[in-house]
């Protein structure tokens, strides 16, 4: 009798053995992620405070949250951040990667390191640098604008003190810090596109723009989905870089959802309510991710 070939399992590994390989990852993941999530979910129905007995309060924490103006304003601020940064964090890294992938570029290694470098610097250092750069009166940006006569010496742009301009500053800082990471993902994707596609396009007389539009962009579909997915989650969870730069100011205009959560849980010590806020954020991210996956499935079809 002829032995049946198993093309999907060429080395004869049994199904359960795959799970064995996952155990080293799964155990810490279960302990440090899933159990924490489950604990938070449980705590969100209590009035948990340190040094105080735990009491079940039902949905009270959620009711208080939904009645709190700061909850909605911080959620709105986070949505603003997501709306401003996610498109920038897809487009700018894509363009940078496109530039780095060009055969005409000299000193490619230098640019690659330069664009990625802010990613390896601690967020606190990036923030301190940004606060110096965007300070009025003594900062670099206003100084340069005044030197090149683009701004009157009597006028100061309040990059961090104006409720609208502060978002521009935050987005610039976020892109400066994080664009390099997405750029590397795009660059890796671009280097996987077979050269033959571009050679065929050259034979057909396609321009650079047409090659980008008809070859590069469609071939990177899975990279777009991955980057969008990662960036959305990262943007929803933004905290430290904005908190360190503005402390949520001016006047709460940049208080993000995670800052609200942090202040509720650790400044006011309403740990039960803080847990409820964390669960709400989890549900929001879950919902957004589901919608995103649905849309990306439709596109791939």
């Amino acid at each position, binding site marked *: 009798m002829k032995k049946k070939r198993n093309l999907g399992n060429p080395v004869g590994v049994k199904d359960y053995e795959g799970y064995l390989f996952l155990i080293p990852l799964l155990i810490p993941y279960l302990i440090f992620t899933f159990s924490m999530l489950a604990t938070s979910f449980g705590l969100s129905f209590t009035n948990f*405070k*340190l*040094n*105080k007995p735990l009491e079940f309060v039902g949905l009270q924490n959620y009711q*208080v949250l939904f009645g*709190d*103006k700061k909850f909605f304003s911080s959620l709105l601020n986070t949505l603003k951040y997501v709306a401003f940064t996610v498109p920038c964090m897809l487009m700018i890294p894509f363009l940078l990667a496109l530039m780095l992938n060009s055969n005409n570029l000299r000193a490619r290694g230098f640019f690659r390191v330069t664009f990625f470098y802010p990613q390896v610097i601690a967020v606190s250092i990036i923030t301190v640098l940004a*606060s110096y750069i965007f*300070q*009025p*009166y*003594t900062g670099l940006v206003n100084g340069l604008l005044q030197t090149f006569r683009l701004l009157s010496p009597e006028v*100061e742009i*309040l*990059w*961090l*003190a*104006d409720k609208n301009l502060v978002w521009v500053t935050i987005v610039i800082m976020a892109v400066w810090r994080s664009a390099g990471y997405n750029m590397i993902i795009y660059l890796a994707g671009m280097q996987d596109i077979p050269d033959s596609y571009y050679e065929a396009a050259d034979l057909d007389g396609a321009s650079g723009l047409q090659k980008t539009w008809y070859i590069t962009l469609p071939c990177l579909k899975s990279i777009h989905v991955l980057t969008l997915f990662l960036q959305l989650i990262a943007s929803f969870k933004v905290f430290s870089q904005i908190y360190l730069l503005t*402390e*949520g*100011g*001016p*006047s*709460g205009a940049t*208080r993000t959802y995670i800052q609200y959560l942090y*202040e509720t849980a*650790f*400044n*006011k*010590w*309403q740990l039960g309510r803080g847990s409820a806020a964390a669960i709400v954020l989890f549900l929001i991210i879950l919902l957004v991710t589901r919608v995103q996956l649905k849309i990306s499935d439709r596109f791939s079809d």
Partner: protein
Amino acid sequence: MKKFVAMLLAALLALSLVGANAEADKIEIEFWNLFGGLDGTYMTAMVDEFNASQDKYFINCITQDFGSYYIKLKTAVSGNEAPDFCISHDDYVWGLVKEGILEPIDQKAEELGVDFIWDNYIEKLDMLRFDGTIYAVPLDGVLRIMHYNKAICQAAGLLNEDGTLNIEPGLDKWVEAFEKVKAAGYAPFVTREKGSHPVYLFNALYYQFGGTQPWIADDGSSVTIEKEPAIAALEAYRTLCSYNFEGVDSVSEIFLEGNTAFCYDQSASAATYFEGLGENYGAQSTPQWGETRKTAVYSHTFVLPVNADRTEEQTRGALEFIRWFGINNWGWAACGHMPAYKPVRDSEEFKADPLHALYADSVDMPTDSLTYGAPIAMKGSAEMNDPLYEVGRGEITAEEGYEKIVENLEALLADYQ
């Protein structure tokens, strides 16, 4: 040669072991503080001096991150990992007491025979009594004062011959002074818009314009900030901020550039400003903008966190250090804070200090700075800072600012019902 080096190394090793043994023989006491910069240097020096001054106790001084200090303290107490004693800002003390984080200091001192002379401490000590019991011992009086540039004030005609200001009390007189500075071609005023600074200024103004009640009732049941003085204070706050450099963090840099006449900033910056401006540096306590002369005086304090593992000897050692720190308070206050131990104010060292003399009267006009009924510290809180910022920038009126403060404080109290 090799033999000599070997003997030298052996001798050094033996000496270091002797040193280590000397430290090991002492009772180690863990002390947490949150001081950085100049304060940190002075605190380390004080601890080193105490450790060298006696053979029984070794204070292990651990500096914690400022931003997460109280989180660490509370979680440490809850996990029975608390230090033997530590620092707390005065406006955090009542909240810590209510949460069961702190132990009474005076009772422990009496129990262990550590002899404090409580009358020697500034009035802040009485503000730190809860139900008659002392939970915190002040290290200092932390102040905001008006630093000024004498050369600019001279050019604007605002300086007396002795280097003091010839500005009469009253907000309108200060506005006139600012206008004179502007007319002389200089910037009038700079202060900080973030952190604890807005509440320092508003607190002084509130009590200067007739405030008598704390912002929240002592039992935490209601918001008691008085409307009329609060609105007057907010209007004054707006007036002062209208002359400020908007949106700056680098207040020190701006003042030290030498183009700004006045800088309302912490007294601990006096030495830095004096070093930068030299003979052009002048300072006075918070001006009288309202009906009376008042200034907010906050304090760093020593507290004893709940710690079941702390031995009686460790508690005694911690208390001995706190007592010693009071008696030797000049070693700390020299960095610019007001001494918390009254006899130090009568000492020759204090009187001979040229900078402290400029604002020494601050301690005689303290406001009722602590808000016992508030579940969190008011200084640096979003509840106070957000409306103050908007009033300061003229985005809302003083009346609207008052309404927002009341609304925020009521929401805060509701959180803790």
